[in-house]
């Protein structure tokens, strides 16, 4: 029993001190800086933040999808099941990508091949990994389409991506992610952002139930605090390439400690404090330019609590509880 406990709580993925830069004509963009995170088996970790915070770059780094050049992995380790993915060759990565780590993107139309039926595309995943006849691969694909609740899966398997609605295409993408032989980690990058809210609710529910059923971990990348609140176990808040707060989902929404997290929650019009209010508590200013950013806290220029030290030194970790840490010189108490 003890051994079982160890394996279920063990880290599936561990990122240590990752920095990812991009060389552009205007200078070096420090997209991700000193990022560390862990994902345990069967947990849902949400990376949340606004445009340019580095959440998608982090996801692409895990999958080895950062274009080099212009991108550079400056430093860090990405350890998946005990192996550093950054030291793998492209060929070795191909046996991890789509096998142990699958990915779902915001716009499924750009990730599905428009000239093949979706049944064929899912069957191809089986054919890549198993020595089985084409017909069997196709019927397994139909089973998966059924599992992601696509109505009349036999007919739909013969449809081309453009014949499906946005929600159905996203279901097909999830089916494809499940077709990999040993799904371990699913990375979902804004999986419901392009979908209508009634469809979003269906897809989120589907992802959570399949995650439990297959026993995989989910890295959910989103800008939407509502989606985080509905699905995540733990949350990491990123701002301008830095991790600023990390907590279990209840603590984060209950006692946000970083001024940015608090500002983000206060910016939501759905926040209950605004019942009957006529203005929102907006965060003033805009996200800093990643080209000219210094070593201080990137939020300092918008932060009501910032002091001199915030502008020159990025703070270390302040643990608040066992599951809640903040990176702030003057956090909200």
């Amino acid at each position, binding site marked *: 029993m003890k051994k079982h406990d160890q394996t279920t709580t063990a880290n599936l993925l561990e990122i240590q001190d990752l920095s990812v830069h991009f060389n552009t004509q205007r200078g070096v963009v420090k997209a991700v800086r000193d990022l560390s995170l862990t994902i345990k088996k069967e947990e849902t970790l949400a990376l949340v933040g606004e445009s340019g915070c580095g959440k998608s770059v982090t996801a692409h780094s895990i999958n080895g999808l950062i274009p080099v050049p212009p991108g550079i992995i400056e430093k860090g380790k990405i350890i998946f099941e005990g192996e550093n993915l950054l030291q793998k060759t492209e060929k070795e990565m191909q046996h991890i990508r789509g096998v142990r780590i699958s990915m779902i993107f915001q716009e499924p139309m750009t990730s599905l091949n428009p000239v093949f039926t979706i049944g064929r595309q899912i069957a191809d995943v089986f054919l890549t990994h198993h020595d089985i006849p084409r017909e069997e691969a196709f019927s397994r694909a139909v089973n998966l389409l059924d599992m992601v609740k696509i109505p009349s899966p036999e007919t739909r398997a013969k449809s081309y991506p453009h014949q499906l609605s946005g929600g159905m295409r996203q279901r097909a993408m999830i089916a494809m992610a499940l077709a990999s032989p040993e799904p371990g980690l699913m990375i979902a990058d804004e999986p419901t952002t392009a979908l209508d809210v009634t*469809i979003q609710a269906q897809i989120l529910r589907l992802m959570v139930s399949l995650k439990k059923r297959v026993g995989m971990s989910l890295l959910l990348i989103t800008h939407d605090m509502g989606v985080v609140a*509905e699905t995540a176990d733990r949350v990491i808040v990123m701002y301008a390439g830095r991790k600023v707060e990390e907590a279990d989902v209840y603590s984060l929404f209950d006692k946000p400690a970083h001024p940015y997290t608090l500002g983000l929650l206060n910016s939501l019009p759905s926040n209950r404090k605004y019942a009957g209010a006529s203005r929102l508590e907006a965060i003033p200013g805009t996200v800093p330019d990643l080209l000219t950013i210094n070593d201080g806290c990137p939020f300092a220029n918008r932060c009501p609590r910032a002091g001199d030290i915030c502008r020159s030194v990025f703070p270390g970790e302040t643990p608040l509880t066992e599951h809640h840490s903040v990176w702030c010189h003057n956090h909200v108490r």
Partner: protein
Amino acid sequence: MSDKSILRVQNLKTYFDVHNERGEKAHLKAVDDVSFTIREGEILGVVGESGCGKSTLGRTVLRLEEKRGGTVMYRETDLFGLDHRELRAARKKLQMIFQDPSSSLNPRKKVSSLISQPLKIHRTGTPEEIQDRVDALMEEVGLNPLYRRRFPHQFSGGQRQRIGIARALALNPEFIVCDEAVSALDVSVQAQILNLLLDLQDRHRLTYMFISHDLSVVEFISSRILVMYLGKIVEIADKKDLMKNPLHPYTKALFAAYPDADPKNRKEDRMLVMGDVPSPINPPRGCHFHPRCPFAKPVCTEVYPGNTNAEPGHTVACHLYST
């Protein structure tokens, strides 16, 4: 807010000629027999999912689309009865703010010329007066007038939306259609722009028709809310009545599907509508929502429901409530 209406829309229809799946000619009934009024000084929120016709409705009430039937009365004037010159004069008072400022602003023009364009078209003053007005407008929307010689790409998304707002304000309008005006923005910037829109409304006594797919935004900013589904208005009510007592099954489904930004309220057992939004080219017979509706009765598959007045100012189009 007064009870005087600024815009009265009656039986408005906007159809587009399209070809259906078999290549036959068909109508896409983007707005199908829609009636409502907008009162002076109010913010009427229009909410619905993609393809429900909310943007087309916003464009048609400004006569940016041609109607297929019905009327739009702006105060005492029939907008569709105006000739070109009269329409141009009326447009001064009727403006629009678009979703994506980067595609609605000409990338080759400087900010000063973008904002002054409406002023020049309507010949509102000497070049100096126009210049002063541009500076005042930039200041008003929270842009530093020193940036007047910059191009749109040199601004962030939120600042570009401020440029779009300055342009819409330039001619002192009284009615503005905001079509997904904050949807492309990050949430912290979205809050700034919502506050700005509210400040401007107070200061200039503006009336907004605020179109958005985002229920939380519409809920926050509006005084009344209109819910659309496949070209039809399914429910319209004062905000507080709609929040407290949503009647149409689609409105309820929309509220239930909206993720609550509080993990303590995870609605794991909530009722979700299943299925997709059908194509607006060939919507279901009867009530368009009946294939997804858990309460559908036989009559719902045959007859489109009429409007029922559930309480004062609260109208719903659903057979469950018709007497």
